[in-house]
């Protein structure tokens, strides 16, 4: 296997990227050393080891031209699916979900792995199948929607008043242009690639990782480009789906069985026992678990659930807010050190940082993540080829969604879903795979246009 390193000069590496990653990772370890004081063992050390392993693997991967990754997309994707199926049967449980797979001494989280595999496969797919040029109406999204309405209205009016029958054709004639973009039928295959692992992940259940994977896939689709009509359809569908989820969450919470049924199967058993459940209720129970429904609803009414589902958010808000401008100092956060803040080494690592280092520290971390995303987007736009661009964009989306959802969740902007903050939350699989994604970014940048 030939190595395609065109220029071995070390200064061709994207040093700003490396430095900002090192900065975030360093702050993350420093933060874990404070947050993990109540836990047995030195978490920060374990995290540091995982980061070093990831960095080593990433550095090694630089010697392989990223264009070779294209070949590995399918094997990796299938491997990820296999692991996801395995974890369903042989996984280790924690917090009521089967997420970990033990491979000898290594405990792997296949869902993390699946995220990267999906990015790789979608990048390959969009690279190999560029969109076709098509004739579309002029005027972008608004015109496509309004144009369609206009036509229907005109047809309706025409039926009533025959003399206006010719008018609609006149209105749209000559207002078309050639547009490049994917349309709905083109999206079926990528959607299947995306949804198969997502369904398996959500089944674990790990709603957070599933959502992030969907968000990344959606971002890749937007990046790939859609025709304006397709975009409008998808936006409408997305809004509809959000409403449906909200509605179902309300149904699940309002159904009496929800109080007694703490698990999926029991909810179904109850549904059988209670013939009064309507088909709508049964469907809602099938799709949403009571605890998930409660999170959605409690997000909008935190006071009502202060000691229940919204306890996490309430304590997180207190932690973040009580940090003030400068914070309480490392190791001095009362929310953290007295364990009022739940899950403080994993999903709620950011509030730890915000409490102990204040607005100044929190803003620095947010800006660092923004810098990471912007650098990744820059690398994507300078990529040598479509595959590289999609690969880099996938990494950018990965960072963006993790950082945005996590910080928005811990500051009460979004409901609580278990999404870790990359490089700050404790997690070996996540650390290694994140650094591999950084490796891929460096790889694309190393072999960018004009080099």
């Amino acid at each position, binding site marked *: 296997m030939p190595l*395609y390193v065109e220029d071995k000069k070390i200064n061709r590496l994207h040093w700003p990227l490396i430095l900002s990653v090192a900065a975030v990772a360093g702050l993350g370890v420093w933060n874990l050393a404070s947050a993990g004081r109540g836990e047995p063992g030195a978490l920060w050390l374990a995290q540091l080891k995982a980061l070093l392993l990831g960095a080593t693997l990433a550095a090694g991967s630089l010697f392989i031209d990223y*264009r*070779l990754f*294209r*070949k590995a997309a399918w094997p990796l994707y299938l491997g990820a699916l296999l692991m996801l199926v395995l974890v369903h049967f042989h996984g280790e449980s924690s917090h009521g979900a089967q997420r970990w797979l033990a491979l000898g001494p290594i405990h792997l989280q296949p869902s993390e792995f699946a995220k990267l595999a999906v990015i790789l496969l979608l990048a390959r797919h969009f*690279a190999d199948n*560029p969109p076709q040029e098509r004739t579309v109406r002029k005027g972008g999204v608004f015109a496509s929607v309004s144009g369609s309405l206009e036509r229907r209205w005109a047809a309706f009016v025409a039926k009533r008043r025959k003399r206006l029958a010719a008018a609609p054709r006149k209105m749209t004639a000559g207002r078309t242009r050639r547009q*490049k973009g994917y349309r709905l039928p083109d999206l079926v295959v990528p959607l299947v690639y995306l949804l198969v692992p997502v369904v398996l992940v959500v089944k674990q259940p790990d709603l957070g990782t599933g959502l992030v994977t969907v968000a990344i896939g959606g*971002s890749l689709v*937007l*990046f790939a*480009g859609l025709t304006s009509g397709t975009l409008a359809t998808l936006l409408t569908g997305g809004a509809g789906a959000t409403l449906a989820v909200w509605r179902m969450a309300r149904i699940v919470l309002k159904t009496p069985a929800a109080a007694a049924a703490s698990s999926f199967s029991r909810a179904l058993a109850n549904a059988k026992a209670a013939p009064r459940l309507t088909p709508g209720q049964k469907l809602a129970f099938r799709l949403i678990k009571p605890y998930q429904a409660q999170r959605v609803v409690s997000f909008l009414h935190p006071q009502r659930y202060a*000691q*229940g589902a919204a*306890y996490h958010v309430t*304590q997180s*808000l*207190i*932690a*973040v*807010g*009580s*940090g*003030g*401008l400068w914070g309480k100092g490392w190791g001095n956060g*009362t*929310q953290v050190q*007295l*364990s*009022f803040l739940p899950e403080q080494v994993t999903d709620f690592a950011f509030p730890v940082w*915000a409490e102990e280092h*204040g*607005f100044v520290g*929190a*803003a620095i971390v*947010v*800006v660092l*993540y*923004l810098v990471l*995303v*912007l650098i990744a*987007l*820059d690398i*994507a*736009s300078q*990529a*040598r*080829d*479509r*595959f*590289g*661009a999609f690969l880099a*964009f996938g990494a*950018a989306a990965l960072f*963006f969604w993790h*950082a*945005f959802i996590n910080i*928005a969740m811990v*500051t*009460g902007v979004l409901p609580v879903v278990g999404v870790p903050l990359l490089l700050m939350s404790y997690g070996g699989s996540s650390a290694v795979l994140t650094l591999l994604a950084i490796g891929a970014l460096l790889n694309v940048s190393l072999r960018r246009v004009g080099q």
Partner: protein
Amino acid sequence: MDGLLQPNKEPRELKPRAAVMAVVAAGAFLVLLARLYDLQLIHGVELARKGRDNYVKTLVVPAPRGMILDRHGLLLASNRASFDVYVTPQFCQPARGILDKLATLIGLTAEEESAALAKIARARGLDRYQPILVKLDIGRDALDVLLANQAELDGVDMIPSPHRRYGPLADEEKNELFARMLAHVVGYMSEVTAGELKRGHGKYRQGDFIGRRGLEKSFEKELRGVDGKRLVAVDAKGRELDPAAQKELIPRGRLVPAKAGHNVVLSLDLGLETLAWKALSAAGKAGAVAVVDVHTGALLALVSYPAYDPNEMTGRISRQELQALVKDPLQPLFARALQQQYHPGSTFKVVTALAALAGGYVKPTSTTVCHGGFRLGNRTWRCWKKTGHGVVDLTRGIQHSCDVYFYWLASKMGLDPIADMAERLGFGRPTGLGLGPEAAGVVPTVAYHERVDHWYSKGFALNAAIGQGAVNVTALQLVMAYAAIANGGTLYRPTIVSRIEDPDGKVAKEVRPRVARRLRIPAADLDAVKKGLFAVVNEPGGTAYYRRLSDVLVAGKTGTAQVVQIGKKRLKEDQMPWKDRDDGWFVAYAPADAPEIAVSVINEHAGEGAYAAEPVAMAVIQGYFDLKKERAAGVELSPEEIANLVPDPQYASPSLRRLSGRAPVAAANPGGLPSSTDAALR
């Protein structure tokens, strides 16, 4: 390798989209920054306060309640260290096993155990760290047992909480005697109700105890101190942090000390109270004794018998035990000395006598003749002595308790002068002792009978003259009236508290004798009545002559009040139902020549005053002077010694024998009983 590394074309068109995405990402992160600014800088102070509320737990430091002491400083109500048992659901596992173990160790009832288990099962979330009360007030022994078994009692805590102890002794069994005799004076406490919590304006908290009866209630404000508080820093599981962390997290105001309540010092003498209680309880089933200092109106003893155990009533009593108390026909929850009104019988004759003298209807030397009955209209009012008393003047009338003499007085003056004098002597309205509700008694007037019975005739006056008919008084009213006669005409309002002291022993408030009224009865009239009262006890033929004391001159009056109307045929005393038998009275003061104390004794349904009540009163009087002698010799009686005091058996015995069903030894029971009158005439 075919085309593997061929750059596929057109990455350029992706470039503008990456730029759009960059703008979107920057916008999204700007939202996050704005949110952080909002939380940390705008709401930072408020959220920091919430954070402080998270880890600062406020513990109340209960203020020690003031003590209640007798006149010699003996403890009547005080606080004792005791422990309440709590379990914390989170740590108490398995709950059933541990509670079963608790039940065998400290004797939980099945009811208490299942209630605790239900509460544990209901606790969710952070509530699982809230301790649940399982058993209130376990004793020292039970505490030792629990401490010895603590290793097997996960999540069980014994929290020290001061509880009230009534009576001076730590030994519960020996103390019970004191607790009971004091119950109607000192009262008891119980948990505040929801309504009181609301009205208390934050002074009380859930689970606080509040005075329910007696002094505990009347002096609640003085006895209750001001609770302090202690701030402690805790972690999310409610565990207290180490002292260094405490200091760091709560730099100031960790402790606001409690202010103890004031002590209430009584005029009551525990020794005399004990003697009175023992004498009365040996002589009857129910009754009251009141002993008062004639020169101040300060009560030296106040016994209402029977009584409950206030130590049980304060928190520990079970529903069944309380039901039994409420349903007890002898009504132990009832403070007889002030709340029960009785016909005073012949003890009321001094009022009739004073009324007649004051109105100038007779002179002390005026006489009438008693043939055993008094004819008014077409009816005859019987004297208790069928054979008659012959020629009777005031002194003889009182000495022999001759009913005819007083019928004669009443027939001369009618009802209203008697009522007028009774009211001057404090009858017919509460004395104002301040120990809770009091019975007012009834002083009938002509108007009263016209209102209640819709007619009046002189017969009512005749009945009232001998303390029957509608006349009703309390033991406390009677003793205050006799004290006023004894001290030369000053009617005091009775007091039982002599002073209030702050926790350091400084007097915060002195209670001065309170004069209810100056009677303004000529000394000659009082002397005439006093002469009669002296003769009752000290001259042969007096109704109380046989039980006089050998070394104290006592003046007093017996009374035997009939409680049911007499039918055609009257049963013998021991054939009648207990509740139909006569009430026995004795009211006296001593020494007769220079009075110090006045005593009234009512022994319910125990028969004639001379047998049923006089021995009790005499024992109390004898006890008063004995105790005084001891005190003068410098002997301070300890509570244990007081517990062992026995009233002089010489005075209690005749009555005791009566109770056991045998015939009285002294003074023959007057034979045939009146059959046609509507009053008891002895």
